[in-house]
Each structure stands twice: as structure tokens, then as C-alpha cells.
């Protein structure tokens, strides 16, 4: 499955400045593994030492936050857009 991954500014040092890159995998975990193969080191910025998503990073598959889905096991159908976005403050 080929997906497009939107890369936040602070991770573009890994992608040569590219804001969107292609990756493949049937789940988010596989997509992140594939990204790591292309851009060494990037996976460790998104997931922590225990293999879980870091708590201040939001990952979306399509329009949905994966924490409302199946986290790293969330399916990534062909053509899906995956977005990696730092947490943002708002309100009080």
C-alpha cells in the first residue's frame, strides 16, 4: 500500500527538506518502518523507546487521529494521507 506522509518542519532534516514523502505499508507501524528505511532516524523521533507514539506528537490517518483508531495498528489503505503533527496548545 502506498501512502503519502506529511512531514512536520522539525523532521524535515531527515527528508532533505521535503514536506511530503511516499511510504508503503498496510498499517501505520509498517509505514513508519518503511519511512525508517528511507530516512534513517526518523522513526525514533515519532515513537519512543517502548515503541509507542510519543505523547506530544499527533498522527493522523486521513482525517482521524490514530488514538481514536488503533494507534500503530491503524490500517493505511492505498492512497491514504498520513500526517505527523506536533501537539498545539489552545484555550485556557
Amino acid at each position, binding site marked *: 500500500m502506498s501512502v503519502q506522509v*506529511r512531514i*512536520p*518542519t*522539525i*523532521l524535515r*532534516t531527515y527528508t532533505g527538506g521535503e*514536506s511530503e514523502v511516499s511510504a508503503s505499508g498496510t498499517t501505520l507501524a509498517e509505514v513508519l518502518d518503511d519511512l525508517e528505511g528511507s530516512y534513517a532516524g526518523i522513526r525514533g*523521533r*515519532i515513537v*519512543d523507546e517502548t515503541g509507542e507514539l*510519543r*505523547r*506530544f*506528537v*499527533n498522527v*493522523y490517518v486521513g*482525517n482521524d*487521529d490514530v*488514538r*481514536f483508531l488503533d494507534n500503530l495498528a491503524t490500517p493505511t489503505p492505498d492512497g491514504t494521507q498520513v*500526517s505527523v*503533527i*506536533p*501537539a*498545539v*496548545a*489552545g*484555550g*485556557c
Partner: protein
Amino acid sequence: MSLTTRPVADPTTPTREGAFGHARTLSCRECGHQAPLGPHYACPECFGPLEVAYDFPTVTREQIEAGPRNIWRYKALLPVPDDIEQSPNTEPGFTRLLRADNLARELGLTRLWVKDDSTNPTNSFKDRVVACALSAARELHASVFACPSTGNLANAVAAAGARAGIRTVVFIPSNLEHPKQVNSAVYTDRLVAVNGSYDDVNRLASEIAGEEEGWAFVNVNVRPYYAEGSKTLGYEIAEQLGWRLPDQVVIPVASGSQLTKVDKAFRELVELGLVEDKPYRIFGAQATGCSPVSTAFKSGTDAVRPVRPDTIAKSLAIGNPADGVYVLDICRRTGGAVEDVSDDEVREGILLLARTEGIFTETAGGTTVGVLRKLVATGRLDPDLETVVINTGMGLKTLDAVADRVGAAATIEPSYDAFAATGLTG
């Protein structure tokens, strides 16, 4: 009018000495990574939030008291230049701290104050944070001043941008209360209503911030400076109490930023020798329809699980609170708590504050008063300790929340007999 016009300036580094006052660096709250002062907000190592760290000068009470009656009296403790007062801004702050004896009596407290931020220039505490963000945007030569907002922030950004002569673009959920939309649209013709929740709007802003050079999103890429503005609430409470910390404070929680900054302010005042060290408790207030931090507090976990908000308290309707884990830490460390109340209790809180103290608060304030009442009733807030409750904004912006709960007691002909017949005499 195009919203895609690309500005020419790239805000990467400040261009003059002292642009951020006595701020020294941006420090990651999670891993301690140090980043240079600039338009950075997330740690490149772990995505943790970056926070301003300072080399504070010696500051005395007398110096502060000799300053202007706005937040710039504390400019030495903020990431702003020493000549900040020379630049156009909305001059928020130094709002009233009202002794609330009637509300205290109603709830069974002995010493209660309301810190009333509804009297800021655009009628919410957001004018404080936006003033600091505007300074950062100006020093970074940003050409667009922007935000995603649940309403109050959009009002403050639009007004401050207008006064500063910088282009503003503000993004809001399209279902936002109409008065809050009008309160932004009067200041800017670039109000963008987004079909989605606040969290969706936030996500959009993050993506735009990553693509558009020269845009200063106040709570995204200049967030570290913006958030520091909330410290002034803590400074003012202490100064207005006669340079001492209160025993207990009740603060509304959306992202949790304000609560964390009031705590930071109290600790800084102690470190600087401006107040005596003493224990204080901080309590967080959420609406049950969006209470991820309260839920985590009650379940004893450190993880704040995001929720999809469903509450009339829209300014608190952030299902994915960025500072939620820090709110948990602070409330637990200080012996406080995080509690939530239903929408009906939010409305009751609005009416209670209005009818005891003459303060018309928005739904966030109704939430805070409702939680105060609940904390007293359940014995978790000590009624004999000095307590401050923060009112973050003005009720005129959320009229619909109580409009169907209040109205004329009677409609009569203009005669004394008709009035007497209502039973309202005496």
C-alpha cells in the same frame, strides 16, 4: 482577497539584542533539549513543548509597582524587549481582583477572590498572551499574525493585529458562538470558519505554519512566548494580595497552558524573593463534556486520553490538551485536584457568579465556579483557606448559554397597581 499571498520575510532569528528581554533559550519540558530563541515550539528530539528559560535580573517589588498598570509592569520577567511599551499593543492586564464575600457566603468559604479577566481589552485573558506573542512576531519580522481559536483568542489576535498594523488571519470552528465570530470580524476581514472541531482547526493551523513562511501563529510557532503571557495572572494575583501567594487557586483547563503558567509564576516569584515561599494548591476545572484531564486525574493515570468534545463551554472544548499531563503533575504536586461539571452546572455557575458578585462570566468561568462549588461540597477544597478563582472571559460572548434561563419576572402595564400585583414590592 487572497489568503495565499506569501510574505517576503522569513522569521527565523531575532534581529536585535534584547529582542526577547532576559530570555536565554528555549528548553524542552520533556527532555531538556535546548533550542535557540526563534519561531520554534516543538522539541526536535521528542516533540515535547519548548518553554522560555531566563537569566532573570534582580527585580524588586518597588520597580514593579512603579511600572504601568498593565502586564508590562512585569516586562523584566517576560520574553519582551525593555522598550516594549514603545510599540503599539492593547495593553492588557492589571485587571481587578475582587473580594467575593457574597459568593463565599453562598458556598461556605471564608476568604474568596475573583480574578476578573473579563475587563481586558477584548474581554478575556487572551489579550495577555497575545500581547507577548505580538512582541515575538514583531521581533521575528513576521508579516502575518494568525491563530486557530475557540473564539477569545481570535478576538484578541484580531484586535492586537489591527492596533499593531500587522495583517491577521484567524481560524475558528464554523459552529462557534456567533458573538465570538462578530467580535473577531469587526477587527479583521480575514476570519476563516472551518468545518470541524477546534482540534481540526488546530491541525490545519499546524500544517499552514509548516508551509507558510512569515506567519506567526500565536499558539503554534510562537507558542513559547505567547504562553508566558499567562504568567502575569499569577504575578498580579500575588501583587494584589499584598505580595503573597494565595492558599488555593481554581483555574479552567482547556489545553492546560494557563494553569501551568500560573504555577510557573508563583514559583518564579518565590525564586526572585518577591514573595515568601509557602504551600499552595492548584485546582483545574473542566466541563464534563470535554474532561480528558479530569478523567485522567480521577483514574490516577499519567496519560491523558483524547476525547471528542460535546459541551456548551466551547472555549474549554479541546479534546486533545497539549499541556494536560503537566496539569496532572501540578495539581497532584500541590495537593489540588481536577474536577468537572455538567453543562447545567456550568449555567448555574454563570448565574451564581452574576447574582452574587455582579460579574457576568462566559461558560469557562461558569465551569470554574461550578467546579469551585463542587470542590467545596465534596471537601476537597478547604473552605477556610484563602481562595482565588479565575474568571477568564466575558459572558456577553456566550449569551446563548443562559439566554433561555433568564428573562423578565413579569410584563405589566405602566401602573403602580399592576406592579403591586406582581408581588415584587417590598
